[in-house]
């Protein structure tokens, strides 16, 4: 087997300067909450690491996660890190198609058995194998076959991590998340609709650097990125504390940049790095654009009531059942009063 070049060699060939490379290492160390002393170690590890083989499987998805990663405004070191891995199979990005594409997947699996990474975007339908197939292979069969020799699996995006939109009520395809099916391999969830590119590459960088998985939260997400809520890091948080809220999308409060809680912001229950890592090369994140957080990196975000309903709104049925409870209350009151009157009459007679 031909010896793979190191990641450092690939980056050098792509024209990445030493300064630019070290800046990326410093940012990654910072975002992973590692001490500055780890920066040289990250740099050394990335430079010397052999290009890891990565197989990217796309199931029930919209390609938004791939778009997030590849459509950045300008080429970034994060993007180049992705170039530096050996992406041996990816529907959208690979040149090969049909049998040749499948042959590439099998070749990567055989050559790198036990050491390759599997990245999955999209949920897996269990309702009917025909709901989603690739080269005539059901998503379930392809996942099982591919992860068998993998070192670890990264579920990219909320569909792969939690079922996402395909899994939303009434879940017509019986969509499930990757970690419901892969139980014998390490699974890292990198949810978001889509996830932040920096988060995706930093997770891979950590794996390249330390050869181990990051510390995960109860939903299998790297704590370094999903350890704090959007609300806690939101620049509009002081307005929340002051009770200053935008009431509509075009009122004076909205123009003044007040808190979007009343417009349905799910920031308080959403764990993600949007408010710090931001999007589009660090330009902004949705709340800066004037839109409430949808909570896209949380499980079942599609089914948590209306996007524009405030978080504190209860989820009640129609008023019919409440009216029924009121009628039942009246009936019980009448019965109780009748019993009370009988008691009163008895005492009056005896008195």
């Amino acid at each position: 087997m031909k010896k793979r070049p190191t990641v450092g060699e690939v980056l050098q060939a792509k024209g990445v300067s030493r300064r630019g490379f070290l800046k990326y290492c410093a940012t990654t160390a910072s975002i992973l909450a590692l001490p500055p002393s780890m920066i040289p170690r990250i740099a050394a590890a990335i430079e010397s690491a052999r290009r890891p083989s990565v197989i990217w499987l796309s199931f029930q998805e919209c390609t938004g996660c791939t778009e997030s990663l590849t459509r950045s405004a300008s080429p970034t070191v994060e993007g180049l890190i992705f170039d530096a891995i050996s992406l041996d199979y990816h529907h959208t990005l690979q040149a090969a198609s049909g049998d040749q594409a499948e042959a590439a997947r099998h070749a990567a699996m055989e050559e790198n058995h036990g050491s390759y990474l599997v990245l999955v975007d999209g949920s897996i339908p269990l309702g009917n194998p025909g709901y989603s197939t690739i080269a005539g292979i059901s998503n379930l069969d392809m996942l099982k076959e591919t992860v068998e020799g993998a070192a670890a699996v990264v579920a990219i995006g909320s569909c792969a991590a939690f079922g996402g939109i395909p899994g939303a009520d009434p879940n017509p395809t019986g969509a499930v998340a990757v970690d419901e099916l892969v139980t014998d391999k390490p699974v890292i969830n990198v949810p978001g609709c889509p996830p932040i590119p920096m988060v995706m590459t930093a997770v891979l960088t950590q794996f390249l650097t330390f050869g181990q998985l990051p510390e995960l939260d109860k939903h299998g997400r790297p704590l370094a990125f999903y350890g704090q809520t959007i609300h806690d890091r939101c620049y509009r948080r002081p307005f929340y504390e002051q009770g200053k809220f935008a009431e509509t999308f075009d009122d004076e409060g909205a123009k003044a940049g007040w808190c979007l809680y009343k417009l349905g912001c799910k920031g308080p229950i959403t764990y993600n790095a949007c408010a710090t890592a931001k999007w589009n090369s660090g330009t902004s994140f949705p709340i800066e654009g004037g839109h409430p957080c949808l909570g896209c990196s949380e499980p079942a975000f599609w089914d948590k009531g209306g996007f524009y309903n405030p978080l504190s709104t209860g989820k009640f049925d129609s008023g019919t059942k409440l009216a029924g409870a009121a009628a039942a209350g009246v009936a019980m009151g009448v019965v109780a009063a009748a019993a009370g009157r009988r008691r009163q009459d008895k005492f009056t007679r005896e008195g």
Partner: protein
Amino acid sequence: MDLLEFARGPALQVAAYILVAGTIWRIVGILLLREKPDYSEPRARGGLGAALKVIYSRSFTATPFKPATLYPKMLAYVMHIGLFAVVLLFVPHIMFFEGFLGFSWPGLPNNAIYVLGVASVASAVALLVRRLTSPVLRLISNFDDYFSWFVSTLPLVTGLIIPLRIGFRYEDLLAIHILSVVLLMIWLPFGKLGHTFLVFITRGTTGMVFERRGART
């Protein structure tokens, strides 16, 4: 379904049914009771005016009792005013009410609510200490008194903990807070917390009866 979804959905819904049914049951059951017969000539008619007079006058301590009751009365006022402000003037709560009432009203800044909430809890604790340290109060207190104190103080405490994030994640603390409110809603119609909706009915009835009997109110 996670804990927060359970709290915001089915738990809150069932609690609302119990609260509505229980409250109406208590009110209708009392209002439909027969009035006690007059065993002596009524001194006065004992109408709505008498009821309103006592509703107002019993809001203050009568002068002879002031030395004995001023302290608990003050605490009770602080506790109740704080509770009302926290429930009705905290913006997320207003949004909760707006969700099913369809209208809203202005709220207070969060920091003002935190101060009022802490004052309310402190008063509730002081009142409990007084109940536990007074032999007479201990003698006349029963499970209803202590449990009613617990379920009405718990939502205040769980709500105040949310911004502090003590030991739990935000969504779990919010779920615990809502579940504590659910407990309050379920208990409210049946125990002594029924005074929430009965206080003016019972006080007014007392005023009408007293006036008919010629008592000074």
